């Protein structure tokens, strides 16, 4: 009964995954509930590897008991399961002891991530927990909900998702999400505000609306879309990051360099377009000159033929920066 109850509540709440993919949480839980297996795994994903995304760390620091409560609900719902809190290395170092104290006798293991950004990808996370290193993404399907860690059904939700699940169960969910605001902000930090607020409203409310000409990167600090001030009537997507840039002071080439360096450092080098394509983009950025046809072909294979979402997501911020900001950058 309890099982049905929470999934129904999740459905009513319309909670969507806060890791960035925006997948309806109730559907994920239902799929996991339907998977036929005696043993199952539950994972709170605290890999949080993208630059300028800080919200999971904020929960670990300020509300770890709510996270544990969220996990407890999952463990109660799926009896006999075992859980992990999967943490990036610095979070693990900082919060392991505190979490273990809160965990007590619960079947929850605090797990230290091995890799970086990509480790947050669900199948890579499973590989890491299985200790198949260096971990690389698996083919989907099967999805982890069907066959994850050790081939068993695995429910993976972001730390913030578990935090909100606890609130939903307690009837305290106010349709909010955690926004990480960084960059040229007056008040950097994590703010919990309604999910449906426009970027502009969030910036105003947090006293971060710049006086200067600005643009923002929204969703994630590397893979997020670039929006001009005039476009800030949109809502925030992805993992809830807003990075503020000074439009006149930002060198688009330097910014692109930080992104491509990040993707090249963090990708797994498994597939041709992501490994070699990103390198060839780096080469052009170094020269501060794009061969447009070549770049277009590289974007095409990244978007259409990359093995996992990391490679597929690379072109988006570049495309939008090149269109909106690069023309104003002096070469």
């Amino acid at each position: 009964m309890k099982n049905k109850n929470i999934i129904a509540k999740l459905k009513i709440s319309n909670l969507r995954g806060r890791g960035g993919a925006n997948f309806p949480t109730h559907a994920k839980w239902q799929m996991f509930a339907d998977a036929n297996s005696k043993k199952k795994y539950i994972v709170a994903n605290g890999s949080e590897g993208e630059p300028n995304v800080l919200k999971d760390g904020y929960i670990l620091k300020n509300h770890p008991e709510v996270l544990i409560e969220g996990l407890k609900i999952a463990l109660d719902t799926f009896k006999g399961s075992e859980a992990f809190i999967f943490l990036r290395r610095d979070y693990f170092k900082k919060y392991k002891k505190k979490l273990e104290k809160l965990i007590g006798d619960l079947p929850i293991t605090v797990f230290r991530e091995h890799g970086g950004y990509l480790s947050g990808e669900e199948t890579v996370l499973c590989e890491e927990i299985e200790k198949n290193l260096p971990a690389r993404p698996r083919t989907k399907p099967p999805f982890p909900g069907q066959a994850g860690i050790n081939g068993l059904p695995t429910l993976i939700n972001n730390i913030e998702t578990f935090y909100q699940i606890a609130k939903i169960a307690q009837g305290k969910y106010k349709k909010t999400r955690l926004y990480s605001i960084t960059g040229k902000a007056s008040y950097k930090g994590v703010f919990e505000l309604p999910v449906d607020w426009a970027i502009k409203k969030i910036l105003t409310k947090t006293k971060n609306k710049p006086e200067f000409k600005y643009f923002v990167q929204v969703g994630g600090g590397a893979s997020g879309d670039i929006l001009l001030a005039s476009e800030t009537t949109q809502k925030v997507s992805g993992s809830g990051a807003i990075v503020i840039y000074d439009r006149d002071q930002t060198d688009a080439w330097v910014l692109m360099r930080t992104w491509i360096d990040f993707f090249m450092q963090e990708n797994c080098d498994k597939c041709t377009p992501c490994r070699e394509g990103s390198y060839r983009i780096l080469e052009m950025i170094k020269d501060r000159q794009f061969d447009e046809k070549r770049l277009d072909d590289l974007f095409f294979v990244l978007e259409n033929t990359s093995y996992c979402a990391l490679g597929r997501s690379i072109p988006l911020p570049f495309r939008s920066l090149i269109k909106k900001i690069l023309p104003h950058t002096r070469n």
Partner: protein
Amino acid sequence: MPKNISIFINNKKYSAEIGQSVLDVAKKNNIYITTLCHHPDIKVQGSCRLCLVEIKGRKGLFTSCNTQAENGMRISTESKNISRAKQTNLELIFSEHCEECGDCIYSQDCTILDFAKKYDVKITKYEDRKKAYPVHKFGPALEFDTSKCIDCGLCVDVCKKEGVDFLEYKKKGKFYEVCPSSKKDKDCIYCGQCLTHCPVGAFEGVGEFEDVDKYIDAKGKTVVFQFAPSIRSSIGEEFGMPVGSVVTGKLIAAIKALGIEHVFDVCVGADMTTMEEATELIERFEDDRPLPMFTSCCPAWVKYVEFYRPDLIPSLTTVKSPQVIMGGLIKTYWAQKMNINPKDIIVVGIMPCVAKKYEIERSQNNVGKFKSVDQILTTRELAHLLRKKKIDLATIKPDSAKSPLLKPSGAGVIYGSSGGVMESALRAAYKKMTNKRMPKLNLKEVRGIHGFKKAEIKIADKTLKVGVVNGIANAKKLLEELEKDPQAYDYVEVMACFGGCIGGGGQPVPVNDEIRKKRSAALYNLDTKKVARSADENPIIKKMYKDFFNDDKNRHSVCHTSYRKKKKEVFPSK
């Protein structure tokens, strides 16, 4: 759910099974889809991103290797977008592959060059990213030129499947590279499966192909060639002959056409191995010495034992491998008969194997003061040499092979296939123990390309429990069984390569189970046609025991070896 479904590829309907990938269905129906990282031996990699297709009703491109066939799915294998993506990905693949086409194991048939032509690829569009990348040397057996590696991952996975797990990914700067392990407790066993599974020739045997004619015209020397059992059913592939063609006579004729007067069949050496090994098996059985006894014909297995499991050394038969015995016989028995000083004889072995390049360097394999064998050429290297000298194996008239040292028993021939050593030794042991020919000569239980075979064989009043494995991973499974039950086996044959020597690291590429089956079947077919089916029935073996091995010193020097614990010898180069 229906077990059988149908899908449409380029508007034609094909039946498929649930669980099959689109690529599997296409391959089965001879629809060609370009791919580099797909090998039927290995789980799907999905790394090269060339096997692209479109699916009606779905946006974008899909890799057919990891897209499961669904009922009613409509697939296109060619479109403007597919060509564009393949062309770009191929340009990127070429950007990490430094070409050295003249000295490549794929010089005759290069997949990526074919693709380049098909998709109008400018192979030099990008500067080579890996031009300063290192060459790793794996002992005297193998080389891995990482400036040719396209990061497909097949070598890493085949090494894992082999049960050795010596190749691994290491992050250097921004990139992961395939690297030999620097861990103290890991070493290469030289099986060469990485080589036969690499789609672009990043691995090669040491000396391949630059040393192929090193000894051909050696002045003042008698250069002789000997060829391994499994060569006769594989080298034809190098000359466009159907897989499984038996070319023994042609092979001898082709070697003679190189100007080599004396050619020997290592199967005769195998017959000698069989005789000695059967004797040792019976002795061990009767004297309560450690059982099971393990075969030692496979140098990669021997290396595995000496490095990873030195505790098993007392269980390895002390009998040398066929090529080492044959080389030893040439430099002793034959040299005496021919009145040639053994120091003036150069023995070149044609082997299906790169580990044999290592085996001949083991001083324990010397015969007296001399190396038993002086140089190893793989099947591929001999083919290269023949082509270089414009000798076409396909059209050459077979030699009639009159010399008794070219006349093995059927048992000697099947050594080339997994289970062959076991079957040969059992035939001879049966004869020795009962003085009768084994009534059922074809031991089907130990044949075939399966990785792990078991049988119980009755000889006189004894029942022999035998195990036959190929691939070290299967040997490990068998060793685990032995941990639990030390009496589980009396005699075990181990070959490192899948299917045995017919699937060896020196054999023609590509290789897969279909090819292994045909190469193997050809050897068993030869066996059934021989009058002498067991080593003890071979007249030259009987003669050598009478005339030469009546002196135990000779027998020991030619036929027996020893083993010792090894330290790691392969390290990544800087």
